[in-house]
């Protein structure tokens, strides 16, 4: 009875007139600013009306559950002593044993350090490079030059890291690399870039910048093309030269996009690039090359320590989720409507 009293007299009168439950009447604001009463559609009828939509959803939904949710279910082996013949459900629970093993092992800090080093290093190198490249492409007045650079700069993004390894091999190999030929030409000794601890991090960072700079520049080019050209004209009349216009108009105009890209990259900071590392590294450089993902792969699938490897993957997943949620919240606060979800 008390529930019935919570409806305002207008709603009750309205519901009695239309012969529906008062709960189905809801006030809606019109664009004009006044409030009108509307009848919410009946849920059962709505579901029936959309039955072919649900039918359409059926196959993708089942597929999605199998391929995305069953792995989440399987992740419980992080808390188990997994043995293949016992299966996921049959293995014995061990609590946080796997996590403790990982946090206490001496790999932990090394893996975390390497992962963060490569993630931040890639941001620090490739973000400025792609911003400068996008401004150069925007300002370039030679059509052929601009178009060639644009076309070729996007291309490496579509090559896999296996192919990239082949390209780097032709460039860096101590026996047949171009770069070592140049070093020899100037009287230096050849360097084996891929197995030297000093050179390896640079190979990783620079090859990633080379591969992705064009692709990451696209988003900045799009932002540059939205700048109102009258700003430049006004600055020109005021006597600002090209450098000053870049400094005081171009860069501030694309600042929101730069911040958005930066935040979204920080959301995936624990992904330091498995495919790249897996192709480029070798046992000689594990101490500077091993990141969380490559370690999980070796421990889990080569040494069959499924429980431990899953625990590390789960640890990474939880931290990654927190970072994505926070950075996404910040992005939507910072620039309206540009967050992903």
């Amino acid at each position, binding site marked *: 009875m008390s529930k019935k009293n919570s409806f305002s007299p207008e709603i009750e009168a309205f519901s009695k007139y239309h012969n529906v439950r008062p709960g189905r009447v809801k006030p809606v604001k019109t664009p004009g600013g006044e409030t009108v009463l509307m009848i919410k559609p009946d*849920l059962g009828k*709505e579901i029936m009306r*959309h039955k072919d*939509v649900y039918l*359409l959803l059926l*196959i*993708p*939904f089942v597929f*999605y559950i*199998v*391929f*995305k949710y*069953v*792995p*989440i279910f*399987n*992740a419980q082996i992080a808390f188990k002593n997994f043995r293949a013949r016992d299966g996921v459900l049959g293995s014995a629970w061990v609590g946080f044993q796997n996590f403790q093993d990982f946090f206490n092992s001496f790999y932990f800090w090394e893996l975390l350090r390497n992962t963060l080093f490569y993630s931040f290093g890639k941001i620090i190198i490739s973000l400025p490079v792609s911003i400068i*490249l996008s401004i*150069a*492409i925007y300002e*370039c*007045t030679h059509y052929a*030059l*601009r178009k060639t650079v644009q076309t*070729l700069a*996007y*291309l490496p993004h579509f090559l*896999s890291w*296996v192919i990239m390894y*082949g*390209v780097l*091999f*032709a460039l860096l190999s101590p026996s047949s*690399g*171009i770069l070592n*030929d140049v070093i020899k*030409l100037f009287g230096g000794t050849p360097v084996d870039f891929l197995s030297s601890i000093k050179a390896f991090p640079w190979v990783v960072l620079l090859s990633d910048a*080379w591969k992705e700079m064009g692709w990451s520049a696209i*988003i900045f*080019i*799009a*932002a*540059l*093309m*939205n700048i109102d050209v009258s700003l430049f*004209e006004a600055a*020109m*009349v005021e006597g600002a*030269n090209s450098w000053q216009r870049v400094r005081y108009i171009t860069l501030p105009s694309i600042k929101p996009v730069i911040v958005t890209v930066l935040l979204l990259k920080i959301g995936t900071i624990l992904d330091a690039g498995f*495919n790249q590392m*897996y192709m480029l590294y070798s046992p000689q450089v594990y101490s500077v090359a091993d990141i969380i993902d490559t370690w*999980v*792969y070796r421990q*889990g*699938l080569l040494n069959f320590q499924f429980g431990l490897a*899953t625990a590390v*993957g789960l640890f990474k997943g*939880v931290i990654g*989720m927190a970072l994505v949620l926070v950075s996404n919240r910040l992005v939507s606060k910072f620039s309206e409507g*540009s967050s992903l979800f």
Partner: protein
Amino acid sequence: MSEKIKKERTHLKPKMQNKTVRPTRADKVFQICVDVFMVIMLIIIIVPLWSTVTLSFRPNTYIGSYLEGMFLAPWHWSVDAYKALLGNNGFLMAFGNSCKILVGGVICALILTIPLAYVMSVKSLPGRKALTTIVLIPYIFDVGMIPAYLLVQNIGLMNHLAAVFLPGAISTYNVIIMRQFFDGIPSELKESARIDGCSEVQILMRIVMPLSKAIVMTIGLYYGVSFWNNFFNAMLYIQDSNLNPLPILLRNILMAAGMNEYVEVSAFGNAPIEAIKAASVFMSAIPMVIAYPFIQKYFTKGTMVGAVKG
């Protein structure tokens, strides 16, 4: 509209209308710096690609340094490495496997992605919010490779080509992009079809799909690139060497230090080993290079729209 496109073709930055202010010396220096930077970028991008291409055409008899090899005139090039690759059964088989993965993968991916994205864009659907949440959770919470490996093992996909593409056949990111596009289709179009008595499936097939050719191409290309380049799933799930796709074979060839170390490599006859390696790199990249003009046309457009909309 065509006027605008023409302008964009020649200059990204619109021309200034004001002609009274003459460029200063600093402006000219700036313009020269931009051009020099662009030329340097061009060289940085081209050199690695060119060195791979020339290496693959290196004749067996050539004895210069590799640096000089980059400037070898095309009439001295040899196609021995390509002849050896194309005459090799293992290579052809791997190429065929990769093509099967590509075609099967793209078809599966589109059949699954389009309905999911479309249903997520039906605004009146009861439970649409819950569906969106269900779709987003695995995207944000990634549990890593081992649980996915166990899944493929348990459902008996091991050693099937489908294991390479099925785990990636619905990419949540692509679903979101496609849904954003479907959201942008005017609801009046769908509403009028509904009043005429079309079912949702008919609306998807007759109204929405003809309007979505560009986005379907874009997403199809996204999937195609990811399946063609995927070597990780193949490495995990495929043990039978007859089922190896191209990236795996390419990796084996590249990792082989000497001629005789790998059966695949020793079967390639008398072309120089470096040339074989470079040629197999180039052959693996060729489908991407051929598809690239289309990719560029659709991808850049799609990404630009995505960039502006978020």
